[in-house]
């Protein structure tokens, strides 16, 4: 699994590539947590390169979304591949996480209708 972080104005894009499982999820959690700790609370998880996730990845996403939201931010996902989307659906995560078709749209969602 690889993680690339890119700052786009107010939004932090964390691009993940590879498989997220019990072995790799801790690095993902650490990367998310580091950003949130630095005050980067508007996060987009670019999942275009993620070909697989187990429940370990779901745990990382929910933990990060909770931490970001408790500070007034959010974790939004973009470009989720079908197999990963299926896991999000099965876990009921598509009701609690915003998922966008592409990363630009997810980044733009933070400047539109800020509540």
């Amino acid at each position, binding site marked *: 699994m690889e993680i690339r972080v890119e700052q786009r104005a107010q939004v932090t894009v964390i691009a993940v590539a590879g*498989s997220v*499982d*019990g*072995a790799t999820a801790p690095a993902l959690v650490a990367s998310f947590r580091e950003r949130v700790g630095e005050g980067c609370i508007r996060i987009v998880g670019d999942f275009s390169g993620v070909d*697989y996730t*187990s*429940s*370990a990845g*779901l*745990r990382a996403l*929910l*933990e990060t*979304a*909770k931490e970001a*939201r408790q500070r007034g931010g959010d974790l939004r996902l973009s470009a989720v591949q079908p*197999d990963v989307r*299926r*896991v999000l659906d*099965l*876990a*009921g995560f598509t*009701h*609690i*996480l915003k998922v966008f078709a592409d990363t630009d749209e997810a980044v733009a969602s933070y400047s539109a209708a800020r509540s």
Partner: protein
Amino acid sequence: VSREPNGPAERSMRDATFEARLENLAAMRRFVEEACRSAGMDASACSELKLAVDEACTNIIEHGYRDGAGPIAVTCESDGERMRVVIRDRGAAFDPGSVPAADVTSGWEDRPVGGLGWHLIRQSVDEIDYEREPSGGNRLTLVKRSRPWRSE
């Protein structure tokens, strides 16, 4: 690839033993994928089965062998219609029937982090069977049906 409707079922069996470490989950998934591919299983059924095996093995590594390492033996057996994966370990006894239902409907504030592994297994395979072996190991069987081939 096409299969004759009444053609003979392709039987195949493979087994492998892995050390119970999270770093080996990728190799376990690859093993299942190769077995599915050689059995001619469709890609989405294969993905679902891989997820179920990953979750079951993650539980064995994190809970069954909590106090140390040990082997996980995986056998994949196909009759051409269904893939039967038998996962055996020598860790603590564990009955999947005792796992409470996962919360997949609460709002984000109340949604517990974790506890989704068995939910995903139940949603991803057609049959689940667990036995505590007399010799002291666990034997979990997951069965996945391959979906019918489409003509296009």
